[in-house]
């Protein structure tokens, strides 16, 4: 991509952010919340393998929300399953690349 192209793309994106100001604001708030939750969950899953209720208790995030995040993080390779503890699957942080 040339510099002029890059510039015009940047302008276009700026314009889109203005046109979609309301949804962008909502999305930014959502992203902020997601980053915070993901950070907290990553920290507890890095420590040791945990079930969803255990991670919920450690972070104070409701268990249904933890499960939703765990499903998302599993899909994108951030956490992996690590066996079962009673009726609950355990999750841990996926191996991090060196």
């Amino acid at each position: 991509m040339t510099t002029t192209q890059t510039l015009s793309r940047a302008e276009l994106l700026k314009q889109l952010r203005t046109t979609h100001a309301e949804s962008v604001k909502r999305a930014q708030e959502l992203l902020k919340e997601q980053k915070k939750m993901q950070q907290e969950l990553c920290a507890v899953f890095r420590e040791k393998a945990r079930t969803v209720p255990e991670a919920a208790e450690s972070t104070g995030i409701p268990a249904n929300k933890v499960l939703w995040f765990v499903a998302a993080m599993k899909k994108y390779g951030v956490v992996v399953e690590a066996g079962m503890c009673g009726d609950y699957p355990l999750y841990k942080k996926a191996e991090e690349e060196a």
Partner: protein
Amino acid sequence: MDNLHMDALVVGGGIAGMQSALDLADQGFQVALVEREASIGGRMITLSKVFPTLDCCSCITTPKMSAVTHHPNIHLFTYCEVQSVQEHGAGFDISILQKPRYVDVSKCTGCRDCEYECPITVPNPFDRNLGAYRAIRVPFSTAVPQKAVLDPEYCLWCGKCEQRCPVDAIDFSQQPETFNIEANSIIMATGFDLTPIETKKEYGGGKLHNVIDPLMMERFLAPTGPYGRVLRPGDGKEPGSIAYVQCAGSRDDTLGITYCSRVCCMYAIKQAMLLNGALPLADITIYYMDIRTFGKGYEQFYQNAKAMGVEFVRGKVANINEDADHNPIVKVEMTDTGEIVERTHDLVVLSQGIVPASRPTVSLPLGSDGFISVPSPDSAPCVTKRPGIFVTGTAASPMDIVDSIVSASAAAAEASAYIRENNGRLEVQKEALYV
């Protein structure tokens, strides 16, 4: 885009719409298939296995989706909506809105690099919002077309996807576009929705995390489901006790849905059998008013479920509450004894009924049940009150996949006869008749 001239327009790319399009296209007709979602496949591609054969749903649906895209006589328009339909002689002028994907489909290879790069995670309706994907994504692993789509509702317009895309396919300059199709006939195949869970306040009204809809359970049972196994959404527990509440939204005067939805008994039995395989130690109970197994092989399927140990309890579920651990408590009036019993389960599935999906701007009279009206259901079940417009699948009434396919072929046959009778413009390619 110039006006396109087609023999038929099919609205809706579920199993019924795909089958109608294929039947007409095989006869040499030019068919436009318009689907509002970014992929064809409809509900069927989201299901796990089909009753009564327990064949893999994806294995049946994917080849049909592929046949549709590769057929030389089918012109597929995904992520499009019908805006208006005007009568034009014996045919129709249809205005179609192409929603922007913000992705150049001629360049996109479906590699999903953009999806991995996008920072924002959003609920995935393919998994009934229990799973996630990103603001830009390929809709699901077997989507047709296998192309990315960006959701402007969640996009931050940060440009990361654009920088990541190896083939420069992201196009932020795309705008909604309208184009016209002239078609000699229309087939409505817009499908169904579930009766809204919110209307069943006595069953939690959608607020209890461990009371779910049956399409969620289909996703849990599918190999590509959100958790990769059956877990309850409230806290990720593998359920040891699962209950089905039949007629949750059908045969219900209070909701104005007085009809039987035809598929709920069979899908509940199917899911019970699949759960029996996935969770061999789990207790599975089906609370029912009466079991309706009308199709070929269906009664045997029901008997097999009983033999496998699924418990069928005849009773009317009055309400569902939950205990402190969010376990659903089902209050049921036993039909035979009149006794009122409370039972606690780990997970409850509401066998919600079938209602018509929202329809495009084709003004067609509706029946008292809300489905597109068919004046002679006994002799011409696909013929609507508007000459040249036909209806198929669950847009016409609740039905299963087998009946949807039969109905789709019937609608195609009606459309074919109509086109032949009413138009001189029938350069049917003879070779195509013999492929």
